């Protein structure tokens, strides 16, 4: 049964424009634009690092955010709010099979999105290899868990599709604009940086940039915040999530 459910959810994902575009195409487009403008030559703004080397780890945050905060929770709420999970109760199928399939499909989007981004960086803009590749993979996984955890929490809190969409947008847009995922934090005034310090994705991008560039910052705080986000979201979702 699960392979059929996975095929079903995959085809539905292929027809779902927002996550396909904002997960796969948009980060690459942003890289092409800013990489095209600034190239990857050492720049004083980044303390002698290239713009592309600094940007690519940050843009990974865009992929994680759209899959974890938008696509994943909206898909779950769609099935629940329309009564489809309820319909499944009259069959031998388990609603969890559909939600697991959606999780898998969204993880595939993340893997493809990150892969496309890195490939574009390496091939077109002379992106340098990561300094700590294993740490980078681990931090990407932890950051993804934090985003999908927040998504699960959104799906647990929202009762209707409209509510889920509203909450997801309220979380998603600050996450992509105020965390260094698109606009570098170095350009922001203190007030805005206070806000960015409250957003988990800021720490994810900080840690991803450390792993890629070895910028020397301590990432202890970042790891603690991301781990804490995962734990809090898991606990909150376990308490609040309803199948119907």
């Amino acid at each position, binding site marked *: *049964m699960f*392979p*059929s*459910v996975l*095929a*079903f959810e995959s*085809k*539905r994902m292929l*027809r*779902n424009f927002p996550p396909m575009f904002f997960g796969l195409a948009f980060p690459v487009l942003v890289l092409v634009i800013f990489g095209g403008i600034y190239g990857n030559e050492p720049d004083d703004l980044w303390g002698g690092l290239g713009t592309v080397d600094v940007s690519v780890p940050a843009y990974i945050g865009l992929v994680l955010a759209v899959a974890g905060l938008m696509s994943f929770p909206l898909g779950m709420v*769609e*099935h629940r709010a*329309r*009564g*489809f999970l*309820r*319909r499944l*109760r*009259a*069959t*031998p*199928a388990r609603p969890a099979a559909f939600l697991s399939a959606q999780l898998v499909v969204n993880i595939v989007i993340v893997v493809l999105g990150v892969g496309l981004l890195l490939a574009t960086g390496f091939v077109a803009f002379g992106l340098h290899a990561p300094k700590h590749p294993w740490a980078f993979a681990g931090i990407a996984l932890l950051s993804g868990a934090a985003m999908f955890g927040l998504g699960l929490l959104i799906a647990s809190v929202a009762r209707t599709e409209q509510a889920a969409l509203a909450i997801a947008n309220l979380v998603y847009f600050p996450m992509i604009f105020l965390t260094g995922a698109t606009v570098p934090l170095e350009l922001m005034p203190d007030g805005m940086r206070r806000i960015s310090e409250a957003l988990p994705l800021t720490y994810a991008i900080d840690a991803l940039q450390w792993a890629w560039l070895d910028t020397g910052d301590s990432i202890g705080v970042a790891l603690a915040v991301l781990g804490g986000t995962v734990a809090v979201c898991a606990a909150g979702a376990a308490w609040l999530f309803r199948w119907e």
Partner: protein
Amino acid sequence: MSQEEQPFVDARGVTVRYGDLTAVDGAGLCAARGQVVGLIGPNGAGKTSLLECIEGIRTPAAGVIRVGGFDPAADRTRMTRIAGVQLQQLSYPPRATVEEMCRVFASFYPDPADHGVLLERFGLAGERRKQAVKLSGGQQQRLSLVLALLNDPQVVFLDELTNGLDPAARRLVWDELRRRNDDGLTVVLTSHHMEEVEYLCDRVNVLVAGRIAASGTPAELIRDHAGQTARLVLDGRGGDRELRAALTGLGDGVEVRPAGGRLLVDVRPDRRGDVDKALSAADCTPRELPPSLEDVYLNLTGQAAAPAADEAENAHVS
């Protein structure tokens, strides 16, 4: 467990509560193997709640339910393999085609039916590549029947099965169900169309305010609960003020209503002679409507015109 001793669908003493409200109050429903059983009653009477308990979607506060010998709550997997369900509220995920819906539902069952054949039968063969949410209301309704029949079920539960269907599609659905019923399919359905229930059902249960008010074959129900009121139609006499005045003048037990070009007259049995006299004086031959399940429904649910309700009381006593 012997199917002969116990009805194939056997629900007893089912009670459903929503907070302080008791939606279903110790109601039950039985269907022998191969029977078509209808559940009728006003909106809010608890039809859907009772059906959902039997389908295993809702857990009742009290009651014993067996479907094909399985307890829907404790034995969900085995019970849902032999049962097909059409819910009142249709729900299709967006961005999924008819074909994909069928395939994924088929994957739930070890030995599913050929969905191509089913789609053909229900007039959806040309819609396979269309998204389910973009189908018309009637097509969505027919797709829900296809999905309900996809596991070659031994019993189907159909909540308002022909809701939103045009008369031709309704006939098609009826014929298809009747054909499968001939092959042994047990059917439990709810409907607001009394002629549909009368046409399809071997037995009918009338649910009023969460309790079964009456049950029996349509003929038994009509005999016992349709009331004694005669319903006469006087065609072409809607504008006949003289006749209307004469009939209205008869007073108690005679109710006269104009309906377009016709005059409708409800007559209590003890006033029939007077009405016949008035009619022959006006040289009028009435058309008498046979008592139907609709009269039963109206009587038992207390939604009938006053004289008919009186008769229902008498019918209960006798």
